[in-house]
């Protein structure tokens, strides 16, 4: 790396600055898309759904939910992939600076919670939301199936709101981290 730097006339500090800037950019972009996407889904999509037919809500939910979860996954990966080297390149020393270490531990914990919530949404609640009705089912079975879907929708709403709360908390902790 030093040989390469000498050839293109970059000092070690300049290379570190460029790397730090690039990582910061991807990190900022990841949390912006992640947080803004969640806010948009809650404030905009939910509002629009109130004026739509239930059958169309299901189609929109399935389509947008699938895309949203992929975007969330890439953003969460982007956060951790850039976050670790940013900590390594930063000026704070882990363990020495107590406030910084505690804030970073809380943010790591929140990241893990977000991953778990995303996994729950993707593999548990979202698949459960689709009703499996057939003409051979009895009235009791249809009623049971509808109750199951209703419960899944409630679980989904609760999980999405917990996710949004965690995002707001993470944003506040992130702001505090930059001020330490």
């Amino acid at each position, binding site marked *: 790396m030093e040989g390469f730097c000498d050839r293109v006339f970059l000092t070690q500090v300049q290379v570190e*600055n460029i790397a*730090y*800037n690039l990582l*910061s*950019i991807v*990190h*900022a*972009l990841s*949390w*912006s*898309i*992640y*947080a*803004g*996407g*969640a*806010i*948009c*889904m809650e*404030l*905009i*999509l939910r*509002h*629009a759904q*109130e*004026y*739509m*037919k239930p059958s*169309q809500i299901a*189609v*929109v939910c399935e*389509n*947008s939910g699938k*895309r*949203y979860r992929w*975007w969330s996954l890439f953003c969460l990966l982007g956060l951790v992939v850039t976050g670790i080297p940013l900590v390594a390149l930063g000026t704070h020393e882990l363990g020495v600076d107590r406030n910084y270490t505690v804030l970073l531990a809380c943010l790591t914990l929140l990241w893990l919670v977000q991953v778990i919530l995303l996994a729950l949404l993707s593999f548990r609640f979202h698949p459960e939301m689709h009703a499996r009705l057939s003409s051979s089912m009895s009235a009791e079975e249809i009623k049971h199936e509808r109750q199951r879907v209703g419960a899944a929708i409630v679980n989904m709403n609760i999980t999405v709101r917990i996710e949004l709360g965690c995002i*707001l908390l993470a*944003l*506040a902790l*992130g*702001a*505090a981290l*930059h*001020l*330490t």
Partner: protein
Amino acid sequence: MDWSLLIASFIHDLALAAYVGGAIAMEFILAPAQASIPPAQAQIMGEKSSGRFLILVWVSLILILLTGIYRLYWRGLLFGESFLVAPLTWDYSYGRTLLVMTVFWCILMINGALITFIFRPILSGKMQAGSSQSQGRDAMDAKMKAATWVQNLTRVDVGLAVATILLGASLSRGGLL
């Protein structure tokens, strides 16, 4: 730690995330979902979601400006011995980067105003009873043009917002330009 600065930073980050993430979600998540339902329902969804998104855009842009000014003032870079205090001047990378971010913010405001006050009223305009066929065709053409403008302006906004984040992230190490 100064609590007012922390709150201002939190609101600044939140507003920026709401703007950028919202714009990207509208373009890459809601728009494809809208295309998957019948046109009549898609129109309702488009009207309601864009109406709410415009409120989010205006609130975010105003909060970004106010909290941004407060953060600079708190750091002693604004309204000190002079209006702009070094390194918030053209001689420094920090100042140049921030100036470009301010220009981008102005363009986003202008685009927001164009969409809100010019193109959206055209799009939500209803045909009056007794209109002739040519009037109907003209109104439809105007709507199509307005929709294309809104789409292009929204794409420009997404690009500018992402570029602003790129510039903003570089400020922690003295700026990019």
